[in-house]
């Protein structure tokens, strides 16, 4: 990318880029601004704000990429922001000096309704007909000169990703005040407006585009009741595989790399508190942020690729009926499935759901899907306490218990979605509709910019919170400090004296009914950083050494309560702890990404609260039942 010229002293011309979804708006934005978009949120709402600079003849243009809308009637937050911004009613954001409206040339017949609405705003307007090559290929033809004449505004035909028509557009952009303005605005009264639409179409549409043969041919398979369902299942397995298995080597490599870096750092620094803090607090915190990157990059590459290709809309169409039964819609499926690997990319994937209420419900139930961070905890407890026997001849009991935990989480998510969509998800004004765009090979640059945007949003917004909490937890686990002998026993004593250790003791009355003692309490506090941290913390508490986990399994199996003389980990306690981890939102990263995606602490707090209540209640009942059965 060439370096931009020195900033102009004058205020740049501000241009709003508006258009319906799939109209080539983002491709045009990237073509005009390069990949230099600034991403943020509009004040007080979760609507994403994207702006970038375009340089034309040494002049700086600020291009505002407005959310894709079918209409300016504000039914969704996106549409509300667009309508308010354009009318100058959005605090702190003045209306743009001019509007660039992108319309897919092959769907001009439909899009003219939006054109009429935007014209009525009275702002300088330039109409950009995108995908004119596709229109021609499908035998369609539009008279651009007559369209310009009929609307009274400049019209440019472009092929965004090939740069066709961009030169002409660039020459127009710096001077919105010189754009031709319509002598008369389209009528607002429906009947008159419909007559206006029909008369414009009759004048400009020389030939209607035929159906896209490629799209028809692909859809005969993709939307076929049997083949389409099988393909859907295949793609979902691919998603699952991608985040669950293929991201793991990269995550392990990052983990090892951060560990090695820590050792190097520890060796280079004098031993003591500072080195401990830098290695175990800060570096481990940074590590726990970047370890998510492989999953996020892989998931979003596949997600955006399939979205831009046109497949995601078809997938949502295939599965919509099933999701409708729990009050959600087809587009929620991918997010929930991704949450089986990790709720962080899963929650980020809810961005494809246009209805804010549906999106919120999907976000709130996603932590119930059994994520991969629970596996080490399940593995430890099942490995230590469930005998490795086979039942019914060939089924391993340990595997059955693990499957049961997955099923419990999935069932709870379905139940929670059903309840939440009838309570917090109620009153949605947005009806369900889904456009099935023509299949198009997205330019690599478009996919890269979207994936990079998602990764950057995660690092900036969620990463800082995760890092902060990791550092705070380090302090809780290491202060106040007591002088202890070195070795595992010393580490155990230091942990018991720390704030986290005291917190574990303080928690005991609340968790005793679940069968947990203070040691599990400390583990629960530490697991707030990430669920699997409880394994390392328990290892520290039990002064267990050895990386293979065998000694920890042995230690928790033989631990005896000094007051009662009974084992600490009774079958009832183990079952109760497993159930607790099925429900509880023990994950700062999930809370941070919820905060980022809902733009408020209210919903992460709600999710934490309702899941904690569910976890406590379910663990309590489990403990009682198993206790009654085993004593």
């Amino acid at each position, binding site marked *: 990318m060439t370096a931009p010229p020195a900033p102009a002293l004058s205020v740049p011309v501000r241009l709003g880029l508006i258009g319906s979804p799939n109209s080539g708006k983002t491709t045009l934005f990237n073509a005009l601004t390069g990949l230099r978009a600034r991403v943020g949120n509009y004040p007080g709402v979760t609507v994403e704000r994207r702006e970038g600079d375009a340089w034309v003849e040494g002049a700086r243009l600020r291009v505002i990429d407005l959310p894709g809308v*079918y*209409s300016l*009637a504000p*039914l969704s937050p996106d549409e509300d922001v667009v309508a308010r911004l354009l009318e100058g009613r959005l605090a702190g954001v003045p209306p743009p000096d001019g509007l660039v409206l992108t319309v897919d040339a*092959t*769907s*001009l*017949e*439909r899009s003219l*309704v*939006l054109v009429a*609405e935007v014209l009525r705003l009275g702002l300088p307007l330039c109409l950009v007909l995108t995908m004119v090559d596709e229109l021609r290929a499908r035998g369609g033809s539009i008279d651009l000169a007559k369209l310009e004449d009929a609307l009274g505004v400049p019209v440019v035909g472009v092929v965004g990703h090939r740069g066709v028509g961009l030169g002409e557009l660039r020459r127009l952009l710096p001077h919105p005040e010189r754009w031709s303005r319509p002598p008369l605005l389209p009528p607002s009264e*429906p*009947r008159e407006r*419909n007559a206006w*639409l029909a008369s414009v179409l009759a004048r400009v549409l020389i030939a*209607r*585009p035929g159906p896209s043969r490629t799209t028809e041919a692909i*859809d005969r398979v993709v*939307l076929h*009741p*049997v083949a*389409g*369902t099988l393909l859907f299942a295949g793609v979902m397995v691919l998603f699952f595989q991608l985040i669950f298995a293929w991201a793991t080597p990269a995550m392990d490599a990052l983990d090892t790399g951060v560990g090695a870096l820590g050792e190097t750092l520890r060796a280079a620094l004098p031993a003591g508190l500072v080195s401990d803090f830098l290695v175990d607090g800060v570096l481990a915190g940074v590590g726990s942020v970047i370890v998510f990157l492989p999953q996020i990059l892989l998931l979003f590459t596949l997600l955006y690729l399939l979205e831009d290709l046109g497949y995601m*809309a078809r997938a949502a*169409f*295939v599965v*919509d*009926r*099933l999701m*409708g039964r729990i009050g959600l819609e087809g587009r929620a499926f991918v997010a929930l499935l991704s949450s089986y690997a990790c709720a962080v990319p899963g929650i980020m994937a809810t961005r494809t759901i246009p209805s804010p209420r549906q999106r919120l419900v999907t976000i709130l139930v996603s932590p119930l899907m059994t994520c991969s961070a629970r596996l080490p905890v399940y593995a430890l407890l099942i490995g230590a306490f469930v005998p490795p026997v086979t039942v019914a001849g060939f089924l391993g009991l340990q595997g059955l218990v693990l499957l049961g935990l997955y099923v419990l989480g999935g069932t709870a998510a379905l139940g929670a979605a059903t309840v939440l969509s009838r309570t917090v998800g109620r009153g949605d*004004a*947005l*009806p*369900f*509709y*889904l*456009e*099935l*765009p023509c299949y198009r090979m997205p330019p690599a640059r478009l996919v890269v910019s979207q994936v990079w945007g998602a990764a950057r949003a995660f690092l900036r917004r969620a990463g800082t919170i995760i890092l902060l909490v990791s550092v705070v937890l380090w302090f809780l686990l290491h202060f106040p400090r007591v002088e202890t002998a070195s070795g595992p026993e010393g580490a155990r004593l230091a942990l018991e004296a720390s704030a986290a250790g005291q917190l574990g003791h303080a928690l005991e009355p609340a968790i005793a009914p679940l069968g947990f003692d203070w040691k599990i309490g400390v583990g629960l506090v530490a697991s707030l950083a990430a669920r699997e941290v409880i394994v390392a913390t328990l290892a520290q508490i039990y002064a267990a050494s050895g990386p293979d986990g065998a000694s920890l399994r042995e230690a928790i199996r033989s631990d005896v309560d000094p007051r009662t003389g009974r084992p600490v980990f009774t079958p009832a306690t183990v079952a109760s702890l497993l159930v607790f981890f099925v429900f509880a939102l023990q994950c700062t990263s999930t809370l941070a990404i919820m905060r980022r995606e809902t733009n408020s602490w209210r919903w992460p707090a709600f999710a934490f609260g309702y899941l904690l209540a569910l976890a406590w209640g379910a663990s309590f009942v489990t403990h009682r039942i198993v206790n009654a059965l085993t004593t």
Partner: protein
Amino acid sequence: MKVVFNEPMPGPAPIPLSELPLGASARVVAIDAGPALIQRLEALGFLPETEVACRRRAPLGDPRVYELRGTQLCLRRSEAARIRVRPR
């Protein structure tokens, strides 16, 4: 609220779009819904006299894909039932 766009015209009686057989086409007559839904369906192209064809059905029967004004749009039964069309 009920908005009738057109005067009655000859031909078969109007039916809900959700009842249009797979593969058949029809013309939009009216939308029986609140102003917000009418406005949105119009923005999606369901204007009076618009020709609409039912193209596909999801594996579980609902939703369905309709073709209109050069686009393919997927609607659930609940919304499609609000659009009255006159089969051709």
